[in-house]
């Protein structure tokens, strides 16, 4: 598998706190890459660097061999990197289709002005939701009325829907029940089957072993190891996380 994205020697400090120390890892094309580690190990910080939220002090992030200089999440999005945030980043008072197209609204251009093309957005939203084949209600309903799993599905749908190549998910099933978790996992697998790369942060070992192709382990701001999921065991991963295995 060729590397879609790789981080080389990424370091980042917040004041005197060294959040990331010389982190290197790769995300292969068409695979689910898991990122595990204890709370505060630096997973979210690393992911935010890749998503353009933070800029690393040292090191480079390259995509398909080209080095990226991301200044903002929009930059990352333009490169095909989409993020499903831990807090979902959906606006509850807006409808499903409005959320799917938030800040990427389709408009009828009329000189400097543009009127929303509501019909086209609704139709495309319906198609986006349908391709993911999840239990999502009408695209015209407000997100406030959706269950946690449905919201997560909408968030993933948004990340997956716009020619993204890498979808980053930060704890996508942390707040979900058993059935909803299963459904979201189906979705994640489907993204991979569609040829997208997924970078998954998870605390759930079973989930990591079940879904991922590659696991990277972080501890205290460092990337302490990577394994092919098929060649490792849950115990080995736990050992790497806690430091029992050096």
């Amino acid at each position, binding site marked *: 598998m060729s590397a879609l994205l790789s981080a080389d020697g990424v370091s980042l400090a917040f004041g005197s706190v060294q959040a990331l120390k010389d982190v290197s890892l790769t995300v292969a094309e068409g695979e689910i890459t898991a990122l595990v580690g204890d709370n505060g190990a630096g997973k979210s910080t690393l992911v935010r660097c890749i998503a353009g939220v933070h800029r690393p002090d040292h090191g480079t992030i390259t995509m398909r061999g080209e080095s990226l200089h991301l200044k903002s999440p929009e930059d990352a999005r333009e490169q095909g990197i989409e993020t499903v945030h831990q807090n979902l980043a959906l606006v509850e008072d807006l409808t499903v289709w409005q959320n799917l197209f938030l800040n990427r609204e389709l408009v009828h251009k009329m000189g400097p002005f543009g009127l929303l093309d509501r019909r086209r957005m609704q139709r495309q939203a319906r198609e986006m939701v349908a391709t993911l084949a999840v239990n999502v209600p009408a695209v015209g309903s407000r997100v406030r*009325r959706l269950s946690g799993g449905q919201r997560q599905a909408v968030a993933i749908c948004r990340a997956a829907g716009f020619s993204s190549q890498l979808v980053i998910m930060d704890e996508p099933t942390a707040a979900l029940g058993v059935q909803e978790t299963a459904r979201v996992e189906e979705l994640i697998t489907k993204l991979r089957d569609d040829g997208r790369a997924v970078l998954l942060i998870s605390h759930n070992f079973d989930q990591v072993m079940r879904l991922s192709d590659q696991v990277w382990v972080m501890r205290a701001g460092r990337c302490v190891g990577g394994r092919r999921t098929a060649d490792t065991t849950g115990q080995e991963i736990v050992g790497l996380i806690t430091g029992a295995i050096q």
Partner: protein
Amino acid sequence: MTTVAATPRFNTGRLKDVSFWAEWAAAIGLVLLVIVFQILNPTFLSTGNIASMLVAAAILVILAVGQTFVVATGGIDLSVASMMTLGAVGFGQAYSHGWGLTWSCLVAVAVGAVTGLINGLVIAKGRITDFIVTLGMLSAASGAALILADGKPVTVIDTTLLQLSTGGIGVFGWTVLIAAVVAIIAHVLVFWTRFGTHVLATGGSREAANATGINTDRIKIAVYAVSGLLAGLAAILLVARVGAAEPASNTSFLLNSVAAVVLGGVSLLGGRATIAGPVIGALLLTALTNGLTLLGVSQFYQPLAVGFVVVLAALLTRFQK
């Protein structure tokens, strides 16, 4: 797994739904009020009275539309009336210095827009609560108006301006038509432009809006600038109606603009808004005061009635989903 394509927009089940009634509280209230007043005094729905009610509502409608943009982002603009006063004084000063009507109007609108812009900049960049900033501007703008006018009103006698406040098409005075155009443009802005969606998103969840790359600071600045600009426009109508530019405080306009927004079913928490709601709210408040006056009820009872109606409407909106 089935996906429901679309829900029917209206069915009779909605009539039994409390939230349906809550959403239309202002419209239903207005109809009830009109019926009651018409029974008690048949001149209420005379052409002359309708025309004068609409004229009386025009300024409030414009202010309420501006207030709606701010409230939709989860803010509140306590300085609308003061900005209008400052705009009117700016108009008076420009006019008395012989700048002519067109320039005086532009001054009024510019004064409003700039003060609104200052509100927005301080709120967005200074990270200070909307309430505090606009409370400060409420005082600062009325103070500036007093200083600029030296506490004295400037009489403005202009035939065109007189035409504006007295002429019109049928029952609709020019000022009413201006207010209607403002409301229509605002409606299109809210529901048919990216800006409107981003305003609602900012009010609904600032964090989420930011995460999708919406510049919520810019949205905040824009809505306060819109509110200021409309306050400046309202200032022109005020000068036309009074025939003078006065540094008066106009506090009732502030309270009524917020009341109209609340009556219109717009959530003060932001994220949900209509333009039709606050416009109907403004009409309701005007009809209420007008009707009470027609019935010969003492003016002292009017604020009491307004307060009662507003709280009642707020109670109803609790049932909104």
